[in-house]
């Protein structure tokens, strides 16, 4: 069965569930058994479908147009979110959303890539590919959180930083480097959640954090499978092989120690049930922030530095040399 067919099936069944529920609440309690049956059918069908996904399948899911984006999570997780615009120098980049919202009654800085929902919004948000102004805005808001002492939560979902003329003229490289640096030394607890695509440096710029989580079907890599296939295989058709070799799934990255945990997507894929996905993300954030905010900030910072310092795998040849 194809994903499209499954989605149609899910829509139909959801409609059926909705109708049954209506009847149930209207007092027709005899539909309860059927309701249970249909819900179970939905769960097994969907679970079956998403059972054996290849890395390339996950790339498709991570990029799925209906997949919940940053704004969907903000709406469902934070209260009174106040968006803050602009980098204070030359522009506002709609591909990054930043602001402050309440999380269980306490303020949290929330920053994330936003791809946009419909065609018009996608154009406006540049398909989630930030310009330097976006990273500068993100950094400004992070420093605000640092100054007024509240945690930072980021949502990562970008194909990569935008490759454009103005982006280069305004120093994309420096904007990303500074953002990485700021996050490495930010003196408040930070949590990143990769919710869709983690595309290279453009993603990393918002993903240097005390705890980094990935949704079950999100991906995170140094280059897109397409780019990798074109360069290393010299063949656009090698995307599936490239996706495999890049080790870009949440499971791979957890094993490599690059991320700290995987957030399950109920019903196998986030867009099948965005609401319950947001609920799981919220639960995870609450648990993590509760733990991190209890810690002493200097020990947290030390741990963060230690974590990123130990990234990488190499050999150390035996040497008698001492550097003085």
């Amino acid at each position, binding site marked *: 069965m194809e994903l499209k067919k499954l989605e149609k099936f899910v829509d139909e069944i959801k409609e059926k569930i909705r109708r049954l529920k209506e009847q149930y609440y209207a007092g027709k309690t005899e539909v309860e058994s059927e309701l249970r049956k249909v819900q179970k059918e939905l769960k097994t069908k969907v679970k079956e479908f998403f059972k054996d996904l290849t890395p390339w399948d996950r790339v498709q899911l991570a990029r799925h147009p209906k997949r919940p984006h940053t704004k969907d999570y903000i709406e469902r997780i934070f209260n009174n979110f106040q968006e803050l615009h602009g980098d204070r120098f030359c522009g506002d980049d709609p591909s990054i959303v930043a602001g402050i919202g309440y999380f269980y009654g306490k303020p949290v800085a929330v920053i994330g890539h936003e791809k946009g929902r419909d065609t018009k919004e996608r154009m406006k948000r540049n398909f989630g590919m930030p310009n330097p102004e976006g990273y500068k805005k993100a950094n400004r808001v992070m420093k605000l959180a640092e100054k007024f002492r509240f945690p930072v939560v980021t949502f990562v979902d970008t194909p990569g930083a935008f490759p454009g003329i103005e982006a280069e003229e305004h120093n994309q*490289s420096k904007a990303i480097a500074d953002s990485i640096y700021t996050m490495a030394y930010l003196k408040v607890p930070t949590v990143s959640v990769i919710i869709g695509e983690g595309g290279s*440096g453009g993603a990393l710029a918002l993903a240097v954090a005390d705890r980094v989580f990935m949704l079950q079907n999100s991906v995170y890599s140094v280059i897109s499978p397409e780019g990798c296939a074109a360069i290393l295989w010299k063949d656009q058709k090698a995307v599936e092989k490239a996706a495999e070799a890049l080790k870009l799934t949440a499971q791979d990255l957890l094993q490599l120690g690059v991320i700290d945990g995987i957030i399950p997507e109920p019903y196998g894929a986030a867009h099948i049930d965005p609401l319950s996905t947001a609920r799981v993300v919220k639960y995870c954030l609450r648990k993590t922030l509760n733990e991190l905010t209890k810690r002493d900030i200097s020990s947290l910072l030390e741990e963060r530095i230690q974590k990123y310092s130990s990234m*990488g795998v190499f050999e150390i040849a035996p040497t008698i040399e001492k550097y003085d």
Partner: protein
Amino acid sequence: MKLFDFFRRKKNIPEGLWTKCPSCKELLYTPDLKDNFWVCPECGYHFRIDAKTRVDITLDPENRKPLFGEIKPTDPLMFEDLKPYTKRLEEAKNKSKVDEAILFYKGEIYKRLVVVGVMDFNFIGGSMGSVVGERFFRACRYCAQKELPLIVFTASGGARMQESILSLMQMAKTSLAVGFLREKGIPYITVLTDPTMGGVSASFAFLGDIIVAEPGARIGFAGARVIEQTIKQKLPKGFQTAEFLLEKGLIDNVIHRKDLKNFLKDMVDMLFYKAKEWNLDRLNATP
């Protein structure tokens, strides 16, 4: 980091007595070219030079000491595209005569003690993998400890795809390592040479206290081809060259190769050795 367009364009130092300048097509007598720091005397074209040549023209001949050579590459992901990564490493080593894409030396610039890092584009496009990250990290820690200025010559197509996410993480690792120097008030100078792109550009290259480039060097985040394909426009002439970046205010200066050693001497003095003579309190600067 889709920037390995450079792989197929070979501008290495050619063998033989005569060398053709790729820019003005003039036939140049190689020993003269060598004496002229591998810069075309006719048009000023700066040839790409390998790491060892760079060290030779930058550091005084005496008191040089290689650092962190014990850090060696491995193949953590057992990556295989058309060739296994281990084979690529082997080939790169044979071709480039260096053991990784960055080398570090402790040495002197006109008797001023410094640590110099030099990237070699011939080693898998100067790409940053775990070894580049670890050597750079150790260099920062070492310089912070010993209070020595750090100078890094960048030349890289970006992150090393064969180490996938681990190479991406080197951007975080190298960037935070710069913090060790900032914390101690140790100068960190980067010299961007042809080419400096992608993951290297967007991490330690652009975190220098002073950032200069060689004439004509290609510098940027995204590769020109990727940009053209994305925006479906021709790029303006001179886009992403050192001179372009200077005009846009992104780097401190463009410096001719023959003047570089002198420039570095001045900077190391001004920011560090001579600055101390004022005896001002060393600010406990936040990193």
